[in-house]
């Protein structure tokens, strides 16, 4: 078990004028750990995710990240170039809508290969080989490699987005409702894929979801947010089996029995 966290968030706050996006959020994330951020729409979970991943400027607080060389800087202290380099190598971001994370008019192979080319891979054959491998890992047939995502189903697009993110062997993945837009049957497949890839690649993951079943399946720890604040956090099993905050109890009680 690694002793040092890969990410530390301290007293993070995002305000829009007087309106609170999220406030007083602190947590650590360790390598290989999946943290779920749950809460209803408008609870601030996506704001939090965007602030941590640098897609949104925070108002105050710290976000420290363990670089591959062991440094642990605040992301705000990195140059824009370093941050963007992190984002396309060491990090991944899986959007709810695959169209936000894919180039829809570029072939599946190039979608997967783009990150490789961005870090300087210049051998077409090798890029294609790696892309083919990743497509098969996300269960997309090799013969679809030259098709554009516009010709793919929703589930395939989401799996392609996952492959595109993982090809550079990132260490930290952000996911925003990764199965939110999918049919239930397709959801199960994507979830199962995520679950196995996360454990296989020892990824640290922050996943935003309003679906407690998704959180139960993927995460070890959980943060419950309401009105921009963390109202409860802990082991996922514990939060779901023995919810203590009124809001968490309401969330848990609202799951339909299946």
């Amino acid at each position, binding site marked *: *078990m690694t002793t040092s966290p890969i990410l530390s968030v301290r007293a993070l706050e995002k305000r829009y004028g007087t309106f609170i996006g999220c406030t007083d959020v602190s947590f650590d994330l*360790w390598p290989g750990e999946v943290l779920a951020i749950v809460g209803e729409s408008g609870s601030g979970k996506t704001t939090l995710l965007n602030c941590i991943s640098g897609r949104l400027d925070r108002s105050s607080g710290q976000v420290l990240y363990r670089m591959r060389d062991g440094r642990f800087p605040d992301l705000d202290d990195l140059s824009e170039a370093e941050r963007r380099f992190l984002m396309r190598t060491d990090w991944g971001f899986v959007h709810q809508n695959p169209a936000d994370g894919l180039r829809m008019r570029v072939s599946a192979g190039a979608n997967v290969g783009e990150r490789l080319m961005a870090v300087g891979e210049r051998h077409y054959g090798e890029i294609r080989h790696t892309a083919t491998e990743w497509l098969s890992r996300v269960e997309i047939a090799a013969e679809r490699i030259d098709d554009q995502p516009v010709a793919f189903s929703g589930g395939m697009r989401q799996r392609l987005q996952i492959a595109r993110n993982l090809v550079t062997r990132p260490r930290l993945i952000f996911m925003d409702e990764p199965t939110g837009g999918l049919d239930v049957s397709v959801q*199960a*497949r994507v*979830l*199962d894929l995520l*679950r196995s890839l996360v*454990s296989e690649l020892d990824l640290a993951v922050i996943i935003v979801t309003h679906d407690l*079943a998704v959180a*139960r*399946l993927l995460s*070890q*720890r959980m943060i419950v947010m309401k009105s921009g604040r963390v109202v409860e956090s*802990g*082991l996922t*099993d*514990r939060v*779901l*089996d*023995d919810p*203590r*905050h*009124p809001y968490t*109890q*309401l969330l*848990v*009680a609202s*799951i339909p*029995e*299946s």
Partner: protein
Amino acid sequence: MTFHQPTGSMPQSALLSASGVAKSFTMHLRGGIRLPVVEDVGFALHPGECLVLGGPSGVGKSSILRMVYGNYAIDGGQILVRNRRTGELDDLGGGDPRLILDLRRDSIGYVSQFLRAVPRVSALDIVAEPLISRGTDPDEARERATALLDRLHLPSALFGLPPATFSGGEKQRVNIARGFITDHPVLLLDEPTASLDAANRDVVIALIKEKLQAGTGVLGIFHDQPVRDAVVTRTIDVSSFSARKKIEAVTEPSSERHGSSQQTSASLQEEQFRGPQR
């Protein structure tokens, strides 16, 4: 949180020890009523021992197992688990998620009443998974999983299928195999034989005995009299910890099933009580 000293007589060898453990549920959706479950729970579990939690239904036996596994937070007291890697006793009751995950990985295993099925994962992989995640070679893990499922008479045609469509008994055997395949020093069993036929019940008895032989400490709930009699070394009457009787007269909550006349709020309350079984 009040701290209770571990009951003095606890030998150094104990794998698990609870002392002064109290648990209640505060039900905010029901106006914040507090439902005590147990209080002052204390026991120790030693290697090779099968400690049976006894007492009538609804007295808090399953709750104790869930507290010991970290699924329920406790209001007070200590739950010490011997960490297999360090040999130290760690306070699982403190609720530190990472400590609990660490203990679950190497030190404490749990066979629940129900298999939490993962979509699309085959029975064989579900059983092999705990080994693989601990670094065992996947082929070897699957071999051992196959052996265990064979022993539990699961038709081999089912090995490659996800258990979602299995019968209750088949699911339960997959669940048992998954729980028994590892060698956690502490094993928690929640009615492992509830939906099994006699032949498989005997297999489970044999499995438990082998575990005990190997020095595993088993803490379990067995409603199945013959099974209990076959494996028990010691019984604790959980009624002696029960905090519920004292207030039942006031609020009329019960962990037993309400009549159907009690609608939404009652079933909600019950879910709160039992924790959602998903």
